[in-house]
């Protein structure tokens, strides 16, 4: 057995400044903080509103309340999944029953983890800027060890994507019945597309469809799927933000139409 000489550890360079970065390194975490905080504020307000989430006339269902699974739901707003939950207490809205799934998917997403670790937890706020914590154990122990449940939320997010796709399809409902197209239909379609772009570009999805393989050559179909998911995965950050904005825009649009604040712009019927 060979041995190597060990030398006592030497100190690091004595540099007084905590960071010597001269660029605007604080801008990205600040914008991220504002964006995510804005979303959280909107979501919190929205789940307590408990009204104006269903437009019977055009079959628009607000994404925050989809699927509507309680007997408390507005008439007509529950679709193929039915109403498995009973009447809810007055302080509780149907949105609270379902938002844990897409919320959990985003909270444990590898991109969002990066963004909130940097912008909320300052761990670190930017590269080569001190992380501001005395001790750091990362995701090695509870509670951050729970981030490994991202896989479960991915499975749930696929179901959520299917439901939002269904919502987009039924939104092509005319004022006088039958087929119709409104601005709301198009917004819900764009939202569903962006949600799928985000969901299918997920790192867990990339691993499941083929990333875990060692011999791509023995699994050509899974290799093809892996390459396609990889294309979305490269834009995961982009889809994370676009889908977050689109879900808010779609929800707010349905909210405004349902409340009568604006009229839906009808393109056909």
């Amino acid at each position, binding site marked *: 057995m060979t041995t190597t000489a060990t030398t006592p550890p030497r100190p690091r360079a004595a540099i007084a400044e905590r960071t010597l970065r001269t660029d605007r390194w604080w801008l990205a975490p600040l914008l991220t903080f504002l964006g995510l905080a804005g979303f959280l504020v909107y979501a919190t307000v929205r789940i307590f509103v408990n009204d104006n989430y269903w437009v019977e006339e055009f079959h628009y269902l607000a994404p925050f309340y989809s699927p509507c699974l309680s007997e408390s739901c507005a008439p007509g707003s529950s679709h193929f999944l039915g109403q498995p939950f009973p009447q809810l207490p007055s302080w509780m809205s149907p949105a609270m029953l379902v938002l844990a799934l897409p919320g959990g998917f985003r909270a444990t997403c590898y991109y969002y983890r990066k963004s909130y670790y940097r912008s909320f937890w300052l761990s670190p706020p930017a590269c080569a800027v001190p992380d501001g914590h005395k001790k750091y154990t990362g995701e090695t*122990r509870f509670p951050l060890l729970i981030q490994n449940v991202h896989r479960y939320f991915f499975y749930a997010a696929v179901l959520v994507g299917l439901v939002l796709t269904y919502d987009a399809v039924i939104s092509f409902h005319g004022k006088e019945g039958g087929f119709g197209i409104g601005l709301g239909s198009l917004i819900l379609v764009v939202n569903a597309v962006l949600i799928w772009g985000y969901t299918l570009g997920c790192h867990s999805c990339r691993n499941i469809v083929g990333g875990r393989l*060692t011999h791509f050559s023995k699994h050509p179909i899974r290799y093809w799927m892996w390459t396609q998911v990889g294309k979305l995965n*490269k834009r995961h950050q982009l889809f994370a933000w676009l889908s977050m904005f689109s879900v808010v825009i779609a929800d707010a649009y349905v909210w405004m139409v349902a409340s009568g604040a604006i009229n839906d712009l009808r393109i056909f019927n």
Partner: protein
Amino acid sequence: MTTRHFRVWRGDDQGGALTDYDVEVNEGEVVLDIVHRLQATQAPDLAVRWNCKAGKCGSCSAEINGKPGLLCMTRMNTFGPDETVTVTPVRTFPVMRDLVTDVSFNYEKAREIPAFAPPADLKPGEYRMQQVDVERSQEFRKCIECFLCQNTCHVIRDHEENKAAFAGPRFFIRAAELDMHPLDARDDRKEFAQEEQGLGFCNITKCCTEVCPEHIKITDNAIIPMKERVVDRKYDPLTWLGRKIFRRDQLESQK
């Protein structure tokens, strides 16, 4: 030709400080050119480690205006005309003198990784692999071992106490390279990455990827896939069930 203001950290393990210099800068030069000019004109005892001056040897890692980078790949025209340029040694490793640090931490971590283990029934010369199977591992072979990723990783940069338990991004790509290698016979790379290399310390804030001069997608292509492979083994009930039902853990061809 212009004259530019530089601040260079001078000192050793006993202490040091930023020292001011005004130095000539010519069109097309990089920061390493300026450091060499300082050595030639004003500071002949200035210590700097360098070799290829082409971004391929990984020797001249430092921090320029606080950002980890290679001195030889940081062009002077990326700075404003009146901007002071501050050059310091990498912070995460012990300083030896001026811009030279002791990076032996990385070699110690490298030695801890079990070496490539070919299948027992293959002799040298009999290895056969398809390109599609090895190209993921090949991305990681671009690493020039500049250790900028190790330097910028806050897990050890800001927490010296984590050095014993954390191998760092450079060695996570080595772990991924071997785990994804079609001819590596070891089956415990994932467990090793989690339990011995401290994969869980990484909170995927991607600074390693940002500073990599070879543009290796360290986080997306190595660290996250390794985290996901650990989840496959330890946390995913569907994968666990599939392995049990189909006995995949016993079928080498399914890998």
